[in-house]
């Protein structure tokens, strides 16, 4: 097995262009498990941990650009206040050891329907920056996932970063698992309020072949809130609205029975999580409409 260890991003892209079947390795928390279980026998590994810039983040034009190699621990510490939804999700990943090594880039490229990083990215409308020697593309995160463990990367491309706007309203993430730590989600749900756009974002995990948004639920709730003028003078939500939102989220799912859960439990649990997280974010919004960065006078 070849082991390629570029020290600059340029070299990494060159290496990937020359060895399109090289397996990139960042934290290795997915790759090494697969190698261990002999589910993957890479001819060569392309180690991305020598590239400092990949593990950094920056801010441009009101958006954060998070390097694909930034470990969860740093993401939580350094960006947790501005990306609360993503930070809640990141805190539920594995264990401290896994969070010290695991990265958002690895989570994306694994493209597991159960990846905990995905729902908050969906709820926030994040974009994935992918790059090759041929150039750079920016993909909306929902276009990045193309199937179970499949994504939109060409064989010479690497993920360079994720672009995401800092929260402008309350965000939440909820996960059901069979144990409190070190567990793959039975299902997950993320919600983000975007008061400046008067929109609600959602993301569902372990609910379908790919992570997905509950678009109907988003439309419904955004419409309800706008029609009733709730963004400007928020009031407690009607039970019927909350219930309808939960039902629409559950309906967006097309889960299966597998070792961790039956489909009907997943569908049910998604509805429950949707109702609860909506309750939490809306309470927060009502009590502190501007605390998470919402412009004072829009």
């Amino acid at each position, binding site marked *: 097995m070849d082991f390629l260890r570029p020290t600059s991003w340029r070299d990494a892209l060159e290496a990937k262009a020359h060895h399109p079947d090289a397996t990139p390795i960042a934290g290795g928390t997915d790759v090494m*498990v697969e190698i261990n279980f002999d589910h993957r026998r890479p001819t060569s590994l392309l180690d991305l941990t020598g590239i400092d810039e990949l593990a950094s983040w920056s801010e441009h034009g009101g958006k954060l650009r998070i390097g694909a190699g930034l470990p969860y621990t740093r993401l939580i510490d350094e960006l947790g206040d501005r990306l609360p939804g993503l930070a809640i999700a990141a805190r539920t990943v594995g264990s401290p050891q896994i969070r010290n090594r695991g990265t958002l880039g690895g989570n994306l490229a694994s*493209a597991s329907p*159960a990846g905990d990083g995905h729902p908050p990215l969906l709820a926030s409308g994040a974009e994935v920056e992918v790059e090759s020697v041929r150039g750079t593309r920016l993909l909306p995160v929902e276009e990045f996932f193309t199937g179970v*463990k499949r994504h939109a990367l060409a064989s010479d491309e690497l993920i360079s970063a994720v672009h995401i706007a800092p929260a402008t309203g309350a965000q939440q993430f909820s996960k059901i698992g*069979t144990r409190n730590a070190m*567990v*793959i989600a039975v299902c997950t749900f993320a919600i983000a309020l975007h008061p400046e756009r008067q929109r609600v974002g959602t993301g569902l995990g372990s609910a379908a072949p790919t992570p997905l948004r509950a678009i109907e639920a988003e439309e419904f709730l955004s419409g309800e809130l706008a029609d009733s003028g709730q963004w400007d003078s928020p009031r407690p939500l009607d039970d019927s609205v909350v219930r309808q939102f939960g039902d629409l989220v559950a309906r967006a799912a097309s889960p299966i029975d597998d070792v961790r859960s039956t489909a009907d439990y997943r569908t049910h649990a998604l509805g429950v999580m949707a109702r609860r997280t909506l309750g939490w974010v809306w309470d927060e919004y009502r009590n502190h409409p501007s605390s998470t960065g919402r412009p004072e006078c829009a």
Partner: protein
Amino acid sequence: MTAIPTTPGTEPELGRARKRKEDARLITGSTRWTDNMALPGMLHLAVLRSPIAHARIASIDADEARRMSGVQAVLTGRDLADEQGSLPCAWPITEDMKSPQAPPMAVDEVHFAGEVVAVVAARSAAEARDALDAIDVDYEDLPVVLDMESALADDSPLVHSDLGTNRNATWTFDSAEAGTGGDVEQALADAEVRVERTFRQQRLIPAFMEPRSVVVDPTGEQFTMWSATQVPHILRTMLAMTLGVPEQKIRVIAPDVGGGFGGKLQVTPEEVITFLLARRLGRPVKWTESRSETMVSAHHGRDQVQKLALSARRDGTVTGLKVELLADMGAYLRLVSPGVPILGALMFNSIYKFPAYHFTCTNVFTNKTPTDAYRGAGRPEATFAIERMMDELAAELDMDPLELRRKNWIGRDEFPFTTIAGLTYDSGDYEAATDRALELFGYRQLREEQARRREQGDTVQLGIGVSTFTEMCGLAPSRVLGSLSYGAGGWEHAQIRVLPTGKVEVVTGVSPHGQGHVTAWSQIVAERLGVPFDDVEVLHGDTQSSPRGLDTYGSRSLAVGGVAAVHAADKVIEKAKTIAAHLLECSEDDLEFSGGRFGVRGTDQGTGLADVALAAFAAHDLPEGIEPNLDAEASFDPENFSFPHGTHLCATEVDTETGAVRIRSYVCVDDVGTVVNPLIVEGQVHGGLAQGIAQALYEEAVHDEDGTLTTATFADYLVPSAADLPEFTTDRTETRATSNPLGVKGVGEAGTIASTPAVVNAVVDALRPLGVDDVEMPCSPQRVWRAITGTRTSSDTAAEAGGGLGSMDTGGGFAAGSQGGSR
């Protein structure tokens, strides 16, 4: 009687919360795990295991593997067939018990996925492992037997066709027949109230931390085996008997051993195979397993279906208990497999005064990993069933579950009490433990909160679970073991050597693997002999330095082995006294021993134990017929089991929408008799609780329809972490055991035995107003939700794995295994 020696102003050793002597070394990594061992010329063994649960081995082609770099030998079961013998089962529970041949390495057929089919010995562990991939085994599939009930049907395929049945044995106890009580059928027929339930004890895996490892060195006069085992003495004898090797030519050493929980109470296929390979190749050989090998091939635990019927009067007085068990042996009988459910047979009646009792257990073969002892072995199953039944009866009668128990338990003034199962409980005080637990728990306030939440229809309901348990441990009176057809006795041995400098060596026949015996034995002997704690060295786990013993399991070490040490110490004092009297020119009757000193009564004359030891060593002036040392040994065979008991109370919050269970508070008050070291007891209780709660909420070994274990990693087999467990509130009451001079009872298994029903009772209690009267273990969010929505059927959700990494063959990593939403 020897006076309890204490130096004024110093804390007595017994009862002192000393930190463990052995920990500094273990924590800093200066350890001697078996896998750390490296001997000159040592070869490494890798084991090829059957991925198929039941098949005929048509052929094995190992030619390519033999040619691979570093490979010294590749052997199959056929190669070893003439010398490998059959793995021992030391507990033939009935005379007509069916025992299959249990070759360490499969010869013609494999009977469970994980069974050894070939081994490679190579220069390095990696080369051995790589060569496994080059071995080509051709299997012809045979029908797989997995479910116990269908295994017993007449038309079931057979696990072992030569046995003609999947039934291993049926063992029965009946109080009317035994003359200990009445007829259960009559009691059930006359019942004013009758409760019938079927519970499932899921299959568990004793997830010890250190994987198993064996090194065998054949190059000396003796074969020396280092093994990560709980039972070096038993292992030595069994190796000799199984392989026909003269016993004196085998030395077994259990160096530092990292946990066992019964999982290392075994004579394993790999130990025998490693021995045979070392003998054949004339070189040291080492085998160390991977975690996944542990999961598929080390013995599993529990796995019973329990059918119970309980009769009572309207006022709550219990009148009869009938227990019918099916116990899954897996594919073979290991060391004590058939006896594990029998260890629970005499415990279903627990602390209650049942006037009629019937127990019957049928052991069944299936194509799964063999089961055997796992922390509590038989007693957790019994305790779970009876404590669940008592809560069900309370619900049926609309009585407080603790009131019901009070009405039926053995009162503090009724000890010693002979139970319906024929055991005599020597001591106990259920009232005291329960009263203390209620106080710590805030029982009344919690019941009030529960009522409030029920009234308000809260999404999160509160449940309170009770478990007032007892168990029998301190294995065991040899006479009783004999009457249960067990293959050995239950005594224990100790030797004390007083060195010329006055320092002391204690040799014990028990074999610690994490329990802190070195510290506890030092305290016991320091107290008894009046020597400083640090002057005591404890030797164990090597059949050469500790030639006699029966090792560690069944919460026996202190209650049996510790007591042997006390007796040995008393003999030392007796021996020393004769010499001291001689030196002091007085009569022995004038001497009193206290604080390590023999004093002449009524004078300030005296001499210390160290001086006597030196005088004995010099031997210049000893009384006639006295040997020149103070050493003594003693074997102790207890007259009775020890019966720790306690009251465990658990409050759970159950989310009725998601099914998630959170333990809000957990209180236990245990009575383990006299305590030698409260810190160690606390550690045993905490660990025990964790494992008992794990059965209630998290762990389950799941097989798919082909008999493949789908929970073969710790991502799937959900051992809880600190994040899953509550703070424990623990306390103790102390009722001395009357069966030993220390007054101690066992504590190693108590927490595990008591806690599982407390938790499940709490989950069910939370949901009872919703019409739920049982939730199958482990009570995962999904199972709880199913119970609430009434869609529960006993086996539909049984095949639920925890995490999702999947077995070694399916899925792959969190990424591939977690196709949560895919079709």
